[in-house]
């Protein structure tokens, strides 16, 4: 077991990752945040946040600067790089980056978030930067006095659409749903309906972005009648939802749903021990700054306890002066419980020649894996951390004793 570079590595520097970093740093864990691009993640694209407790109104980038400063104050390390692959098969987690560096840690928190989904329709990619856009703050101004189409009806689509009306002559929103139904919050919907520059095309989707060198229009398909139509415009903004940025985890053994979101339990634990999933990249109900922060805190505390247990195991087992009996059991398996009692008894009779360490295979999967234990009960005998033998299972006290003498 070589020296690890860190205790805790957090992949992603959005609100979930930064909160985890604050908790990790405060718990005196050697904490590293690996972040691609600007710290703050997708929150940076939000002009105005009005639902983060304690901040009446703040811009996304400003709020993230505060998060970052807070993490800095607890001595968290930051690295601007991109994680390209991970190896989570062993207790020591290995992370490889685009700049060809390798980092190792006892626990990893995945907070890589999500990215805008592409529709993959003709013209979308070809005309990017020539009228096809994904960020109103960046690009709305380029459409001064022109006609713009917005695709989507979520919070982002409607709020960004209204921002674009400050520059554009007209903004036409293409909505999948029936007339009057938008996916966004009610306040924004009302404002949008009252905005004279906003128009809506209902029950529709777009099939193609038209134009040679620049966007000249879009091809719209009515989902009810199937009828296609064309609408002239100079710009198209896509806000058609997000996909999790978890593609680099494909080979990692982490469980993901078919869209790439990571399912976790209450402790933010993934199916792999010591690996946690937080924020937008996990399966969850609400994707906001405040819920991301909550995820980050939970995962960091869970990771801290996990690391503590790991360290305790290392000192109590690997560095024990006495020989150690690693007893693998499962609380649901009666046989293993009875065997456990017997082992204790035998050890007493041998005047505590051994130190008995019990391991529940239901929660300590990686230890069971490490010692290649497939059935319970199993006993591995260690001398100064090295395996010297395995006991043959027997409920006969004398036979057991004979093996231990």
């Amino acid at each position, binding site marked *: 077991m070589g020296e690890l570079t860190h205790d805790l590595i957090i992949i992603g520097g959005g609100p979930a990752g930064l909160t985890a970093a604050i908790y990790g740093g405060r718990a005196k864990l050697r904490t590293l945040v690996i972040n691609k691009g600007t710290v703050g993640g997708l929150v940076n*694209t939000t002009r105005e946040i009005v639902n983060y407790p304690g901040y009446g109104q703040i811009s996304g*980038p400003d709020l993230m600067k505060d998060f970052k400063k807070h993490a800095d104050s607890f001595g968290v390390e930051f690295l601007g790089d991109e994680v390209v692959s991970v190896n989570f098969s062993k207790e020591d987690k290995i992370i490889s980056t685009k700049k060809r560096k390798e980092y190792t840690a006892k626990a990893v928190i995945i907070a890589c978030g999500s990215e805008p989904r592409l529709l993959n329709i003709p013209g979308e990619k070809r005309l990017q*930067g020539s009228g096809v856009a*994904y960020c109103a703050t*960046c*690009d709305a101004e380029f459409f001064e006095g022109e006609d713009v189409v917005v695709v989507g009806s979520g919070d982002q689509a409607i709020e960004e659409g209204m921002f674009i009306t400050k520059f554009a002559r007209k903004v036409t929103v293409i909505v999948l749903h029936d007339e009057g139904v938008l996916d966004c919050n009610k306040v924004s919907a009302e404002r949008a309906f009252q905005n004279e520059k906003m128009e809506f095309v209902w029950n529709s989707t777009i099939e193609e972005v038209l134009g040679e060198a620049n966007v000249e229009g879009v091809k719209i398909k009515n989902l009810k009648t199937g009828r296609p139509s064309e609408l002239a415009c100079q*710009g198209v903004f896509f806000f058609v939802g997000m996909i999790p940025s978890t593609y680099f985890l494909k080979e990692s053994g982490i469980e993901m749903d078919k869209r790439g979101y990571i399912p976790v339990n209450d402790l933010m634990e993934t199916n792999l021990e010591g690996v946690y999933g937080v924020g937008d990249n996990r399966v969850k109900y609400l994707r906001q700054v405040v819920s991301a922060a909550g995820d980050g805190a939970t995962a960091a505390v869970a990771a801290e306890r996990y690391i503590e247990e790991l360290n305790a195991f290392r000192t109590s087992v690997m560095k024990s002066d006495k020989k150690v009996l690693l007893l693998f059991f499962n609380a649901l398996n009666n046989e293993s419980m009875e065997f456990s009692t017997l082992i204790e008894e035998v050890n007493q009779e041998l005047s505590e020649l051994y130190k008995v360490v019990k391991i529940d295979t239901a929660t300590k999967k990686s230890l069971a894996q490490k010692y290649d234990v497939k059935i319970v009960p199993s006993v591995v005998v260690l001398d100064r951390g090295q395996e010297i033998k395995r006991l043959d299972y027997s409920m006969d006290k004398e036979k057991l004793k004979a093996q231990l003498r």
Partner: protein
Amino acid sequence: MPLEQLNAKSFEEIIYDNEEPCLVIFSRKDCHVCKNVVPVLEELQPQYQDRVGFYYVDVEEDKNLFQRFSLKGVPQILFFKGGEYQAKLAGAVDEDKVIDKIAEVLES
């Protein structure tokens, strides 16, 4: 190393008069995608020293420059050679895409 910023006047001199192969990123301060792409160029710049010029244009400060190329968004990287516009890259591009494009422009 930060990229050298161009204004309308220095743009003329460097891009059209000197005719050196170069790239120019059109960017703006409050664009988060730009903030991710600019560092990519800053890191690449030393590798191309004396071969390709790396420049920066702020579209808010020099409106007429982006209007001249009828750009519809930032960030966009425009490539020039022999005083002529060659190609462009739009949006969130990574190192590999820039390297490939530079090679393409240099070979053409």
